[in-house]
């Protein structure tokens, strides 16, 4: 059993939850989201984020607006939609259950 493989599998599953949660706190653009995720070692490569963001947006869980930046071209700011909030809540519950289950089993 490849441990990295397992770790990757675990990360994949909770990435969506973390992205939504980060954006739920405050509207952010991609680099800020990356900073948050990388700080908590959830992302190994940054590229992973972009297809996810696009898909979440296509599923209308997220939306974005362009905002002028002082240091360069305009930035894409992502915010969560009401559907996104519901979805996030469900994911959160699922995660809590999972978390408890794992703790219960591994302790």
């Amino acid at each position, binding site marked *: 059993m490849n441990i990295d493989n397992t770790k990757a599998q675990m990360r*994949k599953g909770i990435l969506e939850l973390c992205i939504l949660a980060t954006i739920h706190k405050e509207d952010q653009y991609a680099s800020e989201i990356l900073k948050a995720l990388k700080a908590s070692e959830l992302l190994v*490569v940054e590229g*992973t984020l972009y297809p996810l963001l*696009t898909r979440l947006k296509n599923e209308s869980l997220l939306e974005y607006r362009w905002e002028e930046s002082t240091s360069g071209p305009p930035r894409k700011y992502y915010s969560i939609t009401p559907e996104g909030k519901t979805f996030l809540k469900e994911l959160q519950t699922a995660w809590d259950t*999972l978390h408890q*289950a794992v703790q219960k089993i591994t302790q």
Partner: protein
Amino acid sequence: MNKTVNINLAGRFFHIDETAYRTLEAYLKKLKKAFSQTEGSSEIIEDIEARMAELFEERKANAQAVISQKDVDEVIAILGEPVDFQEAEESSDPQSTVKKKLFRDPDDRYIGGVAAGLGHYFGFEIFWIRLIWLFLVLFSGGTFLFLYIIFWILLPAAHTTTEKLQMKGEPVNISTIEKKIKEEFEEVSQKVKDVDFKKGSETLKKKSRSTVDGLGKVLSGLLKFAGLFIGVLLIILGFNLLAGLFIGLLGALLLGWTLGPFLMLQSLISTMIPIWGLFLLAFIIALVPALFIFGLGLKLVRPRKSIFSPVFVWSSVLIWFASILVLSGVGFNQVRKNRVESSITEATSLPLQVSDTLRLQLHSNTQDYERIVDWGNPFELYENEAGDRVFLSEDWRLVIQPTTASEAELSTHFSSRGEDIAQAKENAQDILFEPIVEDSRILFPSHWVRQEGTTFHDRDLRTYLKLPEGQKVFIHAKLSDYMSWETPHDENLTRRELAGHLYEMTADGLKCLDCPPGTTTREFHYRSSKNGTEIRIRKQ
């Protein structure tokens, strides 16, 4: 010296080294290709380009600085190769249905994991696939055995997580990860339990590697197969036993509760325990081993699953032993209650004139009763109009003997069994048998009577009619069933043939007065019931 290229990346202007530019271009092309099938691919590429521009900007010392090969390599390393993040996206998409692939399952196998793989692929319970496969192998004359080997060779085993998930057709999401973690944990804990067994198989494996690699595996596969086979046989056996028992119990309850056998047994067995309780005990005594045979079979077929909880096993064993104890107690008690045989005799002297011919007749005492249960003599239960229930039995015998006394005597001999003589005597009195004497006529009842609720003991009922010499007696033909062979007489008659003739009593026994000539043998049969010896006297 290197050429530089000017590029516009997401609205920003960069000088870039030519070799670095080629790397960047190749990378972006790879990205485009990777996302060509994905919805909103251009947007993804644009976003990634914007991020790259941002990263390059951070690396640039000043506005005129040139992006080097090193910068590009670093940025690509941060963003990752398309394969790294594309797979994550694909499998994390809950809407994409993962196409199932046929693999062999190395985690759940007896021989090659073919059946498990097929089970995953077709979505059947693996147990049934195995069972079907086993039957096909057994009854196809080797065709399916050959087919199995082909499958074994051609199908790849699912080793990686992706392959395993593909095999089961499960998407990767939170719930599947949860499931996987639980499974993994259970497997680990199982391994901890089987640690000794593991050690054994480990050394076995090493040995086989040093000799013929894989031979051990085949051998253990065959052993597992044998185990599976025996397991299936045990399951079939156990199932049949259980089914038989339950059908038997159901039948016993349905039939027995109505009236017949329970009542019969209740009158036969002297115990405080109701008869259905005894049935239940007997049922448990048979049930527990049947259950264990079934469980053992299941365990052999599915070794990983625990069949019964330890609490269940121990309590079953306990209940089993308790049942045996109680039932054997009842048995011992039964023997004890029937230890001694004793008898009582009720005698009446009959004031008869020798000149009178005594007529022996039968009267049926079943007229007042209706037979409601017939479980064979002496367990025929009758009920009269008032609703009183009695057991009636025809099982009695009439013995006619000579006596030296001047008066005729009729005595009835009841014998029964009991714990002691007093009890046996008491038990003997449960029976009612009263011949009616009217002038020169004796009416024998066809049945003796035992009240319902009295316990049946092995009984013997005999009526002795002792007649002085010269007394004439006519035995009515209806009495033929009840005549005893112990009656001495001068004809060559069977005990039944004794009835229907007129006799005169002599010192040696009955002398037939109306038997057709020629049949006479003048042989007197006599058997002394007191010392058990038989004396035959032949008269010329």
